[in-house]
């Protein structure tokens, strides 16, 4: 396969990483029954504060580069986790609507990011460096695409398998799914529903924070206003639905979005050639593609349209296709659980 093409695929995997991590984080939060709608703002605030921390350490010269990065990541994760905890607390303890609180936090965090980031706009800072994995990088095709990346990208692979294993192959995961599906039953069997919901909300939020750091310390280093990741939080939330709350499908969705974006930005810079013929149309319209894809994917998995189309399929495939396409949320998602 041609090298340029593999490089492109490799860069798609790289740029998709924040989306992958954020969507996986939200997946476990929602699996526990809590919707953290604040992603679009959390990502921005985590990104800017993570970058600010790493940059400050660099200026002060107190840490070496890997530790500056680590500090930035830690700060970003803490920011994401705290915002998520606030959503959890307001819902679990204060009985507020998760969507309302999440939405307010989306706006608040985004404005806060702009306000605090004003002094950090467009300055260079520390960046995560590439690290090729020995041996694996030599594997044809897979090597250049997946194993000539940085540690954060490798972590996202581990995260995907880790979450899958936890969800579907461990007893802890069984409980996690239970508190999102039927909290009363889980409670009856001795699970401390509220505590676990806090915990998974916290964990998911920390991953969202990590995704924020993945932007400002890697994919689009630094900070700018409007932020590079604006809108990605919403896309990540949609990816979770598209992915049917299953880590593999969620990651697939994130790569799909990143690929589409890479194609559209490539066309906008290099033009579009089909069979050597230059095709011309207003390329700015290509920016609509990710959002159209978002609507289309939600259309497919949300049922209405799919059900109607399925009627025209042969009986035999209907059932399997439905199972493949549809994605049903955890049954207790967004609801409160009272221990009476």
């Amino acid at each position: 396969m041609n090298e340029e093409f593999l490089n492109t695929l490799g860069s798609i995997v790289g740029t998709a990483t924040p989306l992958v991590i954020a969507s996986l984080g939200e997946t476990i939060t929602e699996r526990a029954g809590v919707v953290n709608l604040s992603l679009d703002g959390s990502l921005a605030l985590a990104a800017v504060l993570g970058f600010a921390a790493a940059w400050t350490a660099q200026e002060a010269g107190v840490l070496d580069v890997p530790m500056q990065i680590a500090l930035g990541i830690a700060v970003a994760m803490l920011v994401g986790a705290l915002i998520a905890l606030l959503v959890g607390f307001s819902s679990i303890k204060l009985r507020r609507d998760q969507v309302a609180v999440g939405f307010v936090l989306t706006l608040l965090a985004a404005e806060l990011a702009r306000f605090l980031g004003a002094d950090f706009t467009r300055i260079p800072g520390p960046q995560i460096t590439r690290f090729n994995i020995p041996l694996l990088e030599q594997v044809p095709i897979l090597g250049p695409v997946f194993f000539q990346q940085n540690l954060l990208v490798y972590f996202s692979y581990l995260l995907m398998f880790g979450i899958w294993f936890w969800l579907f192959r461990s007893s802890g995961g069984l409980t996690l799914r239970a508190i999102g599906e039927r909290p009363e039953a889980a409670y009856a069997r001795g699970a401390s529903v509220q505590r676990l919901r806090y915990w998974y909300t916290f964990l998911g939020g920390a991953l969202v924070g990590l995704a924020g750091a993945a932007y400002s310390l890697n994919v689009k280093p630094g900070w700018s206003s409007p932020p590079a990741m604006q809108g990605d939080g919403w896309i990540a939330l949609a990816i979770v639905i598209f992915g049917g709350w299953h880590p593999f499908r969620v990651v697939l969705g994130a790569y799909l979005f990143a690929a589409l974006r890479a194609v559209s930005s490539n066309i906008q810079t290099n033009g579009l050639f089909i069979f050597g013929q230059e095709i011309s149309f207003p390329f700015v319209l290509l920016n609509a593609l990710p959002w159209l894809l978002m609507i289309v994917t939600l259309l497919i998995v949300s049922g209405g349209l799919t059900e109607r189309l399925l009627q025209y399929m042969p009986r035999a495939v209907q059932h399997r296709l439905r199972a493949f396409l549809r994605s049903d949320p955890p049954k207790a998602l967004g609801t409160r659980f009272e221990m009476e």
Partner: protein
Amino acid sequence: MNIGNPRAIAVRITFLLLPIAISLAIGAALVIAVGRDPLEVVDALWKGAFKDTRKLGGVVNFWIPLTLVSIGLVVTFRAGLWNIGVEGQMMMGALFASWGAQYIPLGESLAPLLHLILIALAALGGMFWGAVVGALKIRLGVNEIFGGVALNALVNVISIYLISGPWQPRIGGSAQGTEPFPTPALLPEFSARFPTNLFMIALVIAAFLIVMVMLNATRWGLNLKAVGANMRSALLLGVATERTSMSAFLVCGALAGIAGSYRVLFTFDNLRPLASGGIGFLGLLVVLLLSIRLLWVPLIAFAFAAILTGSTRLQIALKLDSSLAGVLQGLLVLFVILFHGVQEVFFPQTLEDDETAEDSVSSVSSVVKEKP
């Protein structure tokens, strides 16, 4: 304990003031953190909003679109719908009005007629975009939050395409904005000292009164409430739930579209990218702050508009980013919601009956659970 006794009143007042005090304190801490004096910020905000009648006119010019979208959002929230697409509906209204402003050949003498046509066009544009969100939600099971977010982004792409393509200025074509519209299309200023548009103010007041009556004294208002409270029982009671939900999107879309037209026909005099300027989202905050009660919308919208107008002075006077306004508004709404929860959980006796209905904002429990 009933709500009339002194202790209950004290608790109620405390819970009214506490969120305000805490958000101001956090705001002050942030200002100190970036090395400025909070009192100077207050001074700048105040002067930026109320120094003279010109500034006051600026406040009113934010108040007009903000109140319009907030009234519309009360309607959609009543029906249990999260119309985040309101921002895009504003923008679509702005696009429709911009089309009319450029292509409808009515001269100065027929300006009032032209304005009516443009405002009607804008309402249609907003209704169109609201109907798309509604159809996606009601017919096809796509949650209105995600449908709305996507449609907001789509209309922005369309507007940038128009501005950098078919509608680009003859000289110096860029993505900054179209040429200023012909004078007859622009809404006139009342006076140079109080630059705002009286007709629009009248329209806002009319919209407020009409929606107030419609919500509280008509079958439609009752249906909205039923659908918002419990879709299933409303259906069983014979409410045409789909039509009711759709009507909410249409009403909100129309009001948002008119708000959008004000931005292009008065505030900017041309079409710019992101002309809606986040006012739709701010409207969501206004309505959330009020637990979707319409009565106080004009007042809170005025306060938010004042903060927004005042914040433009922060950059000039103190070299502070104007996003501080959004931070303050966001903090205030967040703490109002949280403290309402604290009061409800720990002091339930101090609330009136209609306030304890769990969440006043019912998102029908979930972002993603949809019944197509």
